[in-house]
């Protein structure tokens, strides 16, 4: 088990028994965040004043009739592309460096109502575009397992804060794997829900047919607890579906993995997959067999096209979504412009970094007159085939198991000169976003160099409960006990 002192369950129990207080837990998280941030650069803003005020409010006796709250006093970190009223929302970009949204995202409203305490806003790749966190305008985040290495991206700051035990849980967002990939590189749990499961009101849009708010936790149970709070229909987001949200935590202790059918797409275990990652993931498959699961072969014949499809659809949608950053209503505006059109161009030139420009350019190209059918429409058609592959495979099994990333954490700078090589680190994750299905990344081992390795389970639409149950069964049988060298110590 991960150090139980850092889980929601243990925090809640200790608060309830009077062994610690909400204020003490909050202070410890803030202290750890401040202390480790010089090294990790995981937070872009630490909200000591707001968090302590909230902790003191939560410590006041509850008025009669208040509903029990699931996350009372739980410190949480929030990716800087999710709006929290009064705090910054830079999205890791110069263009929003000084932007402070006037409203809370729905997920923030729900977390606050459940008693969570927001510690701060976390660093990320600019507008969530990246797989290493090196595209942040405010410097890269470092991996607590090895500070010469990337934490993954784009939600690298949130992943690093959980891995370093600053907070038990954090919010990120996924467009092509931006939570599962950094979770895997940082040795923690990351869950991407079904498209439409969680409201995106207040999440800054990147690829609207792909984006989902997603959750990091040290344990499956903690990730499930947070998803249970934030999930469900929201009138402010027309893409949220009217589907009941199960009590995820209650389902964890049911039948485990016995009798479950786990599909393994062997074709994805070939080229480009690191040997140590392959071995570790194979061992996880054997662990499921030992737990009484039936392992079946599944085929995903179009999965190899997923990166190509993803980078057409995601960039096309990004080029449209990022058109709003023009210096008119909020965010940066250039000081040197004589006409409106010049103001747009200069503002965007000064405000956007290289990767964001590259993706806007690519997205504009694939949508431009004469190329739309050849690229965008073609990608949408292949997306249909990829989705069908997954739905067909998931008709034969309860979950599909693959590696989460082809390699453990890579070095800072290792892939920055080759955008395509960087994109390929999303090869296992972006399929779930294309198919709209949920996925959970689970740590399963360490490389010979001491870096975390993980596998992921992909499930049917709305099937998060099954993924939590299967992931929890593995976690209980094969606890990931390793801890990174860089870790918060104040609560130990």
């Amino acid at each position: 088990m991960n150090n139980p002192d850092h889980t929601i369950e243990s925090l809640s129990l200790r608060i309830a028994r009077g062994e610690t207080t909400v204020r003490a837990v909050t202070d410890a998280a803030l202290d750890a965040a401040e202390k480790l941030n010089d090294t990790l650069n995981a937070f872009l803003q630490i909200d000591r004043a707001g968090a302590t005020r909230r902790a003191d409010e939560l410590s006041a006796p509850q008025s009669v009739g208040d509903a029990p709250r699931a996350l009372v006093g739980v410190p949480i970190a929030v990716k800087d592309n999710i709006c929290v009223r009064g705090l910054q929302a830079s999205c890791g970009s110069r263009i929003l460096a000084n932007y402070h949204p006037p409203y809370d995202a729905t997920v923030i409203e729900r977390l606050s109502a459940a008693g969570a305490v927001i510690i701060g806003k976390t660093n990320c790749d600019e507008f969530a575009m990246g797989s290493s966190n090196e595209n942040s305008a405010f410097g890269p985040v470092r991996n607590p397992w090895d500070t010469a290495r990337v934490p993954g991206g784009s939600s690298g700051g949130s992943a690093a804060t959980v891995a370093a035990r600053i907070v038990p849980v954090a919010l990120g967002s996924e467009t092509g794997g931006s939570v599962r990939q950094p979770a895997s590189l940082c040795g923690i749990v990351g869950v991407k829900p079904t498209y439409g499961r969680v409201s995106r009101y207040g999440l800054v849009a990147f690829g609207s047919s792909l984006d989902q708010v997603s959750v990091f936790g040290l344990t499956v149970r903690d990730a499930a607890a947070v998803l249970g709070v934030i999930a469900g229909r929201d009138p402010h987001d027309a893409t949220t579906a009217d589907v009941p949200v199960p009590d995820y935590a209650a389902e964890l202790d049911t039948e485990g993995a016995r009798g479950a059918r786990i599909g393994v797409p062997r074709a994805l275990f070939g080229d480009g997959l690191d040997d140590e990652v392959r071995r570790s993931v194979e061992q996880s498959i054997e662990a499921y067999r030992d737990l009484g699961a039936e392992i079946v072969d599944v085929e995903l014949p179009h999965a190899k096209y997923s990166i190509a499809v993803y980078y057409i659809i995601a960039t096309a949608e990004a080029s449209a979504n990022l058109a709003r950053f023009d210096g008119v209503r909020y965010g940066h505006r250039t000081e040197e412009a004589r006409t409106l059109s010049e103001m747009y161009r200069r503002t965007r030139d000064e405000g956007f970094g290289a990767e964001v420009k590259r993706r806007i350019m690519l997205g504009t190209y694939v949508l431009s007159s004469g190329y739309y059918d050849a690229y965008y429409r073609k990608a949408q058609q292949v997306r249909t085939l990829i989705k069908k592959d997954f739905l067909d495979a998931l008709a034969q099994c309860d979950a599909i198991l693959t590696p989460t990333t082809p390699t453990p954490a890579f070095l800072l700078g290792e892939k920055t000169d080759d955008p395509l090589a960087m994109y390929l680190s999303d090869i296992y994750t972006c399929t779930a976003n294309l198919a709209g299905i949920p996925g959970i990344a689970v740590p399963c081992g360490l490389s010979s160099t001491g870096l975390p390795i993980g596998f992921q389970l992909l499930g049917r639409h709305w099937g998060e409960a099954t993924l939590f149950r299967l992931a929890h069964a593995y976690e209980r049988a094969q606890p990931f006990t390793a801890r990174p060298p860089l870790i918060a110590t104040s609560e130990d």
Partner: protein
Amino acid sequence: MPITESDIEKIAKLAHLEITDEERRALTPQIASIVAYVEQLNELDTSQVEPATGGFTPEGERTRAGRDDVRHRSLGQAAALDQAPDPSHGYFRVPKVL
């Protein structure tokens, strides 16, 4: 079709991005190699395949997305203008259009 520096120039204009000569030189081979990579999709015959657009689940498509036509509190003018680079008399002011 190979992507040239003049294509990049044209795309930048469409995207309202100002790019330097240096950026144009760097972006041309990068965009060209990504486009060459995505052209592997042409291996597939998709003439009979419907494109996937929004929705993604039957449950999502069935969900009634509209809300009742009743008044809601909105952000208000002061908060809406609070982050504007150049607000003036309740408006967003911009440089001249032409």
